[in-house]
């Protein structure tokens, strides 16, 4: 775990992630400018740090309704604006980038942040970026596997010898600068299905599992499959951190939380993914065993502790800002996390 800068004895890590979406607030129909949105994200990260959170990450999406296509640039501004919170991507689309350039960027962000930077590498859920960046979508899987392997090799070896299909060969190549501690924590982004998790397990790579909602038992299967695959691949699951990431919203009551949040999720998903979020499933999200963390602060504490008991994971990452969530509600949520939720989560998950 230490290799990944995770210390389970300090309790479950609590982080925040944003996809960097840039959507109208469905309650008003208004959308802030891209400039305002980017500054909002930098402020969001500083608020997360002030509240004592462990991690803040920004995603990469190359489509309409997003503002952080250049997410490494946004992260470098966040690196400069913060002092102690760990930062990373969620996720970096490694399939359509050159791993050498990605590593140079993130190693530099790591230097700016003085050793707080991580990479979560994913493969994109929408595929418009393949045309935009000049890749063939038929190579979707192969691009991801090859480039992710190269990224890991660059991380582990200062001098790289490499040959592959989608990039010029590297011969005794030195990829510089090196990060503060010589290497970065690199996670594999997983979409919640056991098949996807097993690939991370076989490779012995930390898993960053994003999910929309559902029962904790269903996602336990995915996490078990990951650990089983890791064991089968000759790795020790006890040394491999697992992060879960999903929707979070706290309000005075569950009913208020559902009312505030639903239009953001539903309208936002319609625009970015082409289908809304069914009310039935959203209402079930408030159930104690559901991994969507919506409800009152007390209910959310109990949910997160339940998830920790079932999953044995090392980091939970909350998504609060999706779908044009206004900044005052984001602030209020971070306040509730910092004042009430985080202290309770740490108290019950830290090893005394």
């Amino acid at each position, binding site marked *: 775990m230490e290799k990944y800068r995770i210390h389970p004895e300090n309790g479950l890590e609590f982080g925040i992630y944003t996809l960097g979406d840039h959507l109208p607030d469905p309650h008003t129909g208004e959308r802030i400018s891209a400039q305002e949105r980017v500054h909002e994200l930098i402020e969001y990260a500083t608020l997360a740090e002030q509240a004592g959170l462990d991690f803040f990450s920004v995603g990469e999406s190359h489509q309409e309704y997003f503002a952080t296509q250049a997410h490494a640039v946004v992260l470098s501004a966040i690196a400069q604006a913060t002092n102690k919170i760990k930062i990373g991507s969620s996720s970096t689309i490694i399939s359509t980038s050159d791993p050498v350039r990605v590593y140079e960027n993130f190693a530099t962000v790591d230097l700016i942040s003085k050793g707080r930077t991580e990479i979560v590498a994913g493969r994109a*859920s*929408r*595929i*418009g970026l393949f045309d935009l960046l000049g890749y063939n*979508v*038929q190579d979707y899987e192969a691009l991801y596997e090859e480039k992710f392997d190269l990224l890991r090799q660059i991380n582990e070896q200062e001098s790289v010898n490499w040959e592959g299909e989608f990039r010029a060969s590297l011969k005794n190549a030195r990829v510089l600068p090196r990060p503060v501690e010589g290497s970065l924590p690199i996670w594999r982004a997983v979409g919640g299905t056991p098949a996807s998790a097993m690939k991370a397990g076989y490779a012995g790579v930390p898993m960053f599992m994003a999910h929309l909602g559902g029962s904790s038992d269903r996602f336990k299967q995915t996490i078990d499959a990951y650990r089983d695959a890791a064991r089968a691949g000759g790795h020790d699951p006890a040394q491999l951190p697992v992060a879960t990431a999903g929707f979070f919203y706290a309000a005075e009551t569950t*009913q208020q939380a*559902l*009312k505030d949040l*639903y239009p953001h999720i539903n309208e936002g998903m319609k625009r970015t*993914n*082409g*289908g809304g979020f*069914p*009310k*039935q499933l*959203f*209402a079930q999200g408030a159930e104690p065993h559901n991994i969507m963390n919506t409800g009152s602060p007390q209910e959310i504490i109990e949910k997160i502790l339940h998830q920790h008991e079932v999953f044995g994971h090392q980091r939970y990452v909350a998504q609060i800002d999706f779908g044009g969530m206004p900044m005052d509600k984001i602030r209020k949520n971070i306040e509730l996390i910092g004042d009430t939720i985080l202290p309770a989560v740490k108290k019950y998950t830290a090893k005394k």
Partner: protein
Amino acid sequence: MKLIGLSGSQVGSKTRTAMNEAVKKVNEKYPGIETDIIDLAEYDMQFSDGRNYLDYEGDTGYVTKELMEADAIIIGMPIFQASLPGALKNVFDLLPVDAFRDKTVSMLITAGSAKHYLVADLQLKPILSYMKAQIVQTYVFIEEKDFHQKEIINTDVLDRLDRLAEDTVVLTQTFEQIRENQYDF
């Protein structure tokens, strides 16, 4: 409320003739409903390659987006090789797995003979169920002999299409009301 009549074949005229009739009946009975007919014979559709439907362009993008925005869909299809036409199956393949969630879908089938009456029950309905459609259980099955010179000449078939139009609209409106009253957020 938006209703689409999807004529699911690239050849022949019977399905389109019956679809015109069904949508005409919706328009006559429920003038407030926005209707449109998508006849696959008029569109240049590409095969599904697994991408999100928002990422298709041209005719493929148009047809998939229209269907996703509809509240009700009447699917019309002939029987090909004892099954549904490939052109129609491709439309299903282009859409997300739960594309018909909160949509009402009804069916009219045209065929050369009565021998394939159960094809819709055995092959079309399972696909619609999987895609989470609210299905109007009774479909209209129309044979070759019910058509003459691109007109339906059997008044019994016209009555059945009339009931199909009504069932489709009433079921759509009813489910919408139920959904609205179910949750207070």
